[in-house]
Structure formats: C-alpha cells, structure tokens
C-alpha cells in the first residue's frame, strides 16, 4: 500500500528535520523565505524548468504573468491560512468564508473610491484597519447566534451568509452598485526610487511582496495562538466539544474567537486584493471560490499551517499553470478547459489515499488511522 510507505517516508523526513539543530532549521527557513521573495523576478524564474528535446518544460506559468499569478496565489494562501484557523483548529465547518473576504474588499472600495456612494475618498492605508474590523465584527455578529449549531448545520448557515452578500452585491444597485461594481479604488501608497508609484498597475511584484510579508506576519501570530491556551482550547473543541465543555473549556467563547480571527484574516486579504484590483464587483466573489478555499485547506491537511499553505498554493497555482501545458507538450489543446476535471480527480485520489491531507496534522492523522483500523473487519470472537 502506498500510503504506508508514504507515511514511513514522511515520518523519516520529519524526524530528520526535527533532529536537526535549531540554527540549521532557521537557516533553511530563512533561505526558503528569501527564495519566495526573489521568485517573481524574471531573471530568476525563467531558469525554473528544464528542456525536453526542443520543447521547454517550464514550471512557471507561460500563459499568464508569473508575478500576477503569484500574487493571486498568495491571496489564496492567506485565505487558506485564515480558514485553517476556523476549520482546521476549531473544527467549525465554514463554507461562507469568502463572504468575509468580500466584506473586506467592499469596505475598502466604499471608503476609498471616489466613485463609491460614500464619497469619503480615504487613502487606501486608512481603510485597511477598518476593513479588518468590519470583517471581524461581522464574524462575531454572524457567529454569535449561529455557533450554537454544529457540523453540517453550521456549514449551511455560513454558506447562506456568503451568498447573501454576493446576491446583495449582484442584485442591488444600492450601496455596492450591483454588477457595475466600484471602480477607481486607489493603490497602496509608496514611491519607488525613480519617483514613480511603487504600486502601479503593470508590475504585480510589489503587491506580491506586500502579500508575502502579510502572510509571514499572520503566520507568526497564528502559530503563537495555536501553541497557546487558545490553541489548545480549539483542539479540545475540535476533538470533542461536549467533553471540552464538561472539562471547563468555555467552548462558545473560543469558537467565536476562532471565527472572528478567521474573518479578520479574510478581511485583510480582501483589502489588499481591492487595492491591487482597483475595481471590484460581485463576479469576483462567487460561491465556487468559497468551496475552493475549503478544498485547499482539506487538501493540504486541516489543522496544520504548513498544510494550509501548501494546499492554497497548489489549488490556485495548478489551474493557472495548466493553461500553458498544451504548449509544453506541443499539442494544441487547452488544458485549462479541464481544470475542474483535473482538480476533481486530484481531490478524489487524495481523499482515497490520504484523507488526512498532504501535510497532516499529527492528531488528525492518528484519528484517520484509527478509523481505518475500525473499518477493517475484526476477527469474529467465538461465543463464550
């Protein structure tokens, strides 16, 4: 069985990694971060690939701008990291996560754009904390009454919330200006050395660097949370809510916290996205994306930050990269047409062989292994 071999190998790798002295691990991580920072530069990424005969097999995207795709991927990764708090740590199945993302983006748009109904014309930077606050408060408002629900019921409620926002944005010409959306959202501030604006429209790299920095900051915060009393409370809630409640964990409070923190991260992501996009309308917050973020978290390994990052990156990057695969193989077919099919196959295969995700959370992996054992028919016990 491949799974067991896999497990052995990853555990060996894990053991090795953990056994390494701290300075080495730190250096390796620092090297990875530096690599991520120089990734969107053309002089660097054009070497990522290898020739096959006369064709060139590129690992970067050949049909869309690599830096732009990296930014989109980073947006998705940050969303996955935020959702991981809700789904992975606290075990709350949230299908409406994109609603908070939309809230963040729309808040920035309303406050900053000269064409919005508010007409307040704030600078982008001033609107960001407000966007995060709005998303967080909405998380609390939505979570307050609904977090008494569990499992599928909670999923349905959150799904309804995200759809409400999207439908209001699509159907009403009022505040969010319908499908016509809100144009002319200002970019983040900053001037380059040449006096030109640092955050322009053509070069996506500054946005990617901004996003990457935000991801690192959010990661630090979330990691500390996960390793604190709050994180342990989340795990207890995920594993068995009733038992946690009886043992004196204020479950409701911590669930609400998880929800609010996840929402805040989504709001922040939305705010940066709006600043890059300069135009938003309801087309950009479809339900499919909500489900895609959840799929990314599950695929990577719920409850594990590394897993969320990996899942988010693969889920967004792979379809964009597939656009150019037809050229790589040298046939005229558009692989992007089959992106959903490919993604579906990957999810199915993953769920059969690695239901715990690519980089599993140790506890959850153990849980899955237990279940698998239970599913194996036991030898019949002779009657006494």
């Amino acid at each position, binding site marked *: 069985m491949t799974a067991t071999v896999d497990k052995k190998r990853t555990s060996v790798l894990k053991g*090795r990694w953990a*056994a*390494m*002295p701290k300075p*080495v691990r730190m250096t390796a991580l620092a090297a990875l971060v530096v690599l991520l920072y120089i990734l969107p530069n053309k002089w660097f990424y*054009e*070497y*990522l*690939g*290898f*020739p096959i005969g006369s064709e*060139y097999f*590129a690992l970067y*995207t*050949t*049909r*869309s*701008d690599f*830096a*732009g*795709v990296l*930014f*989109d991927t980073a947006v998705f990764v940050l969303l996955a990291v935020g959702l991981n708090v809700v789904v992975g740590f606290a075990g709350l199945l949230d299908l409406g996560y994109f609603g908070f993302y939309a809230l963040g983006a729309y808040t920035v748009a309303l406050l900053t754009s000269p064409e919005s109904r508010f007409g307040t014309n704030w600078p982008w930077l001033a609107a960001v904390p407000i966007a995060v606050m709005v998303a967080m408060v909405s998380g609390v408002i939505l979570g307050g009454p609904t977090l008494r629900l569990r499992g599928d019921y909670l999923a349905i409620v959150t799904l309804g919330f995200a759809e409400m926002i999207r439908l209001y944005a*699509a*159907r009403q*010409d009022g505040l969010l200006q*319908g*499908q*016509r*959306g809100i*144009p002319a959202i200002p970019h983040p501030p900053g001037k380059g050395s040449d006096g030109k604006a640092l955050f*322009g*429209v*053509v*070069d*996506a790299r500054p946005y990617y660097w901004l996003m990457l920095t935000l991801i690192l900051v959010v990661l630090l915060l979330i990691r500390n949370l996960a390793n604190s009393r709050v994180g342990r409370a989340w795990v207890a809630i995920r594993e068995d809510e009733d038992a946690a409640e009886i043992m004196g964990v204020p479950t409701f409070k911590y669930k609400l916290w998880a929800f609010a923190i996840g929402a805040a991260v989504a709001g922040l992501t939305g705010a940066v*996205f709006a600043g*890059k*996009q*300069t*135009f*938003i*309308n309801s*087309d*950009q917050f*479809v339900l499919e994306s909500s489900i895609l973020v959840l799929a990314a978290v599950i695929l990577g390994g719920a409850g594990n930050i590394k897993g969320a990052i990996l899942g988010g990156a693969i889920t967004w990057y792979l379809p*964009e990269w597939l*656009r150019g695969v037809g050229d790589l193989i040298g046939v005229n077919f*558009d692989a*992007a*047409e089959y*992106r959903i099919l490919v993604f579906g196959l990957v999810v199915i295969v993953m769920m059969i062989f690695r239901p715990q995700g690519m980089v599993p959370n140790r506890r959850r992996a153990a849980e899955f292994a237990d279940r698998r054992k239970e599913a194996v028919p036991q030898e019949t016990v002779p009657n006494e």
Partner: protein
Amino acid sequence: MRQKLARVLGGVAIGALVFSGAACKADSGSEAGGGKGACDLKIGFFGPLTGDAAGLGIHMRNGTKLAIDQYNKDNADCKVNLSEYDSQGDPAKAPALAQQAVGDTKVVGIIGPAFSGESEVADPIFDEAGLPIITPSATRPSLSTKNWKIFHRGVGNDTSQGPAAGRYIKNVLKADKVYVVDDQSAYGAGLVDEVKKVIGTPAGQDKIQVKQTNFSAVVTKIQSSGANVLFFGGYYTEAGLLLKQLKGAGWKGTMVAGDGVNDANFIKVAGEQVAEGTILTCPCAPATAAKGTFVTDYKAAFDNAEPGTYADVSYDITKIMLEGIKAGKTSRADLLSFINSYNGTGGATGVTYKFESNGELDPAQVIVWAFKVNAGKVVPDIEIPKA
C-alpha cells in the same frame, strides 16, 4: 548528529547541482522590435473561452481567428498569430493575463476584453503599456470616459442602443404600458436605464437573475400590470425562457430586447412560434452582400456553427489591426495611431469604423436597427431614426 547534518547538506548540494545543471532558459525567440515588416507578430484575444460565459467569448474568438487565418493564407511568408487570453469572464483573473499580454513583445494589439467588468481591470494595464485594444462587446458607457489612450469600442455603447430601443417602443409600437425587466448584469441594467429615460415611468419593473429558469413570479407581475410591451435587458437564454413562459401564460404583447438577445439561439430557446414578432435592436446594420461570405466562411471554418453575437464585429476589428500590420505599422505605438486615424468599412458588419478621440465609434456611424423575428429568422425591420 554531525554525520546526519553532513549528509543532509551534501544531499542539498547535490540536488542544487543537478537542478542548476538542468536549469536553462526557454528560448524567447527572436526579439520583435518595431522594425519594418516584422513577422510572427501576435494579436491577442481577451475574453471568456471557458466557464459560464464562454458561449459569447468563443464566437468572438472565432471571428478573430477567421480573420487571422484568412490573412495568413494571403501572406504565408509573413504570418500573424493569434494569442488567446482566457479570462473565464472573471475580473479577478484578468490582471495576470493582461500583464502577460503586455510583457509579450510580439503582441501588438488586443481584441477585447469582451466584458465590461474585466475591461475595468485590464484596460489600465494595457494603457500603461500603450497596447492598443478594440473591444467588440464591452458596452458600458463609462469605459470611454477614463482617458485610456488605447481604448476603442467597435460597437455603439449602451447609450446609443438603449434610447433607440426606447424610441422604437414609443414611436413605432406606440405602447402605452411598458414593463421592463433586466437580468442585473451591467449590460442589461444599463440598457434598461437608458430605455426608461426615453419612455418615462414604466408600468412595472422587475429583475431576474442570470441562469434563472423559472420566471413564474415575473410572469404573474407582467400579466397583472396589463403591459402590452415588455422590454428585456439581458441575454438570449433568459430572454427565450421568459418569453416562452410568458406566452404560455397567455400574454399577447410584444417583447423588445437588445443585441444580447439578437442571436439565432434565442429562437431556439423560445421556440419559433413564441419568438414570432419579437423586436430585437442591434447597433449594427443588417446583412449586406459582403456579410454573406462571412457567414459561409465562418460556417466552413467552424464545423457549420452559426456565427453568434459579435462574431462579425470581432472579425471586422481584427481586420483593422491586420490592415495596420500589413501597412508596416508593426509597433504598438504605430498600430495605435493607425487605429486612431482609421476610416473604413467593415466587410462583415457593413459599419464604417471611425473612432473618436475617446475611443468610441463615431456616433454618426452608430446606426441602430430594429430586427423582427419572422418565421424563425431574424429579419431587418427598420433603421431607428436618431431623434
């Protein structure tokens, strides 16, 4: 411990060596400058080719492809290639694609973006790079007011078609009670706003959703309002289904709709008898002799598919760019000035293409025609007078 570390480091080093041994750049091909008679230039098509909105995008892409293929047949020694940018109709996906197009030095012009939403996001990027675009179908009026130097619109915008449709309802149909419905898309809602400006207060107004299939609520409202004309702002699928259910409920009035419904598929969806007598406006002239060959060529090239909405516009505006390339305008700046000063008649649409300084089609050239569905065919009815 030491040993382990050494091993790991060694492994990393070997891996890096192998990687760097394999790593090398892709051939970027010969650099295309703005030299005279540069060959292998590219014209990009930017629009939805997969996803929900692909039905509209593919026809436009085909129109563009047809023009380019014909050009390559005549100029086999110096071809122009088509480069496709599939936006999936999602404004969020547009920036990376637009940046890719801008970064490809061989791309000298873009047909598209197909929709208004993605135009809002992609056009500033094209503008920054001075890459000329002509959109065959993004009809939001505000797009031409943003001072984008590269923007051109190959069709009249919503403000040209909407009022004309309103005038037709008022002066030709002489309807006293008009009910308006839109599908809440930027296109549909914009059109309805313009119609309302002309006809005054409608007898009632409602909104439906794209992909909605059951219109019983709207049908009841229209029936009870006593309206004898329904103006629909939206696309052919919903229009066909709505009309089918409306006529099924015994409504006897006439439906008027814009160019989003002006498609053979509308009659397929609604059924011949139901669609009979429906008025469809279009900021285009009816078929000319030239248009005839376009339809046959199109059918021959794309396994007998009927050309859909705006396929002919795409074909014509692609030809404008090809003409420019043929005339040696092979840099973006040259092609842009060529398009700006262009004045010629399109072979498929019969429209004279002449752009104003803001990129709009010359209003004198925007002729809005009313078409009528007659025995399963869309036939020209009258040209709607300008005032």
